[in-house]
């Protein structure tokens, strides 16, 4: 497989993966809808988005999420802590997805190494978080409206 073929196949595989996983990320957001947008604020979600976009390694994303969970724990917000811990687990599990994708994408020079795996894991986490943020914000106005209606 030439370098160009590899890059095109990689791009298509990631696009396909992203479209498949959008519903899963949306389900995660839905399962925490009660926390949005008061306990988990839009600013926190945008912060997560910024970290994911600028991270060089997957570890940077994990460190940010762990920090958010620790902050929530210190503030006694156990539901928020649980959100961040569950998100850390969900994103962590994407490593096996990255491994599976790597197997279907043999590098032109040979087998993938650890750096390729980490890079792909980071990219998958970025796509998952993109869906998560979009879906989390999507329902916020409707939810706020119904809360106002209840008052």
């Amino acid at each position: 497989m030439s370098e160009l073929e590899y890059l095109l196949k990689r791009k298509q595989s990631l696009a396909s993966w992203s479209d498949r996983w959008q519903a899963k990320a949306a389900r995660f957001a839905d399962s925490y809808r009660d926390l949005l947008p008061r306990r988990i604020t839009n600013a926190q979600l945008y912060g997560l988005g910024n970290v994911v976009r600028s991270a060089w390694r997957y570890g940077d994303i994990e460190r940010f999420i762990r920090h958010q969970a620790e902050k929530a724990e210190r503030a006694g917000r156990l539901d928020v802590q649980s959100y961040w811990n569950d998100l850390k687990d969900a994103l962590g599990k994407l490593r096996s997805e990255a491994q599976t994708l790597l197997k279907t994408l043999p590098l032109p020079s040979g087998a993938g190494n650890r750096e390729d795996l980490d890079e792909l894991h980071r990219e998958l986490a970025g796509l998952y978080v993109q869906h998560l943020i979009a879906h989390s914000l999507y329902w916020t106005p409707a939810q706020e409206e119904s809360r106002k209606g209840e008052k």
Partner: protein
Amino acid sequence: MSEQAVQEVALRVALERAIARKSDEYDQSARQYAYQLVGTKLDKTQVRGLETLASTTDKVSDITDWLKLRVGRDSGRERWAKEGIGRDLVNELEGLRNDAKKIVQGLSQVDPDLERQVHLRLCREFLKHLAAHFEYLKLER
């Protein structure tokens, strides 16, 4: 030309025809959305932005994520969130997957990603009509 190459060309032609036929069917529905959208505070750059995104991305989810974000940010409900227009459009675009499925089922094709790619093409067609109608109606007003 080899037999396989001939089959590939025939498949491509059949696919393009099916997409073109669906695109013509979407015109009226897209016009209805455009009518609703001109009743919002959206201007043509925002609708054209959606069309441009659709024509450049390789993911359907990028289009629906873009719309979801705009709906979510429209706390004043004057643009994409006005009277549920953005949500309806997200559902409409996601629903085009059924048309993509039918098109692909009618072809003897084994590419597992083809349905997704056709879905993306149908979204592009729908939004192309929507943007054109929107600009036209906006000008009329």
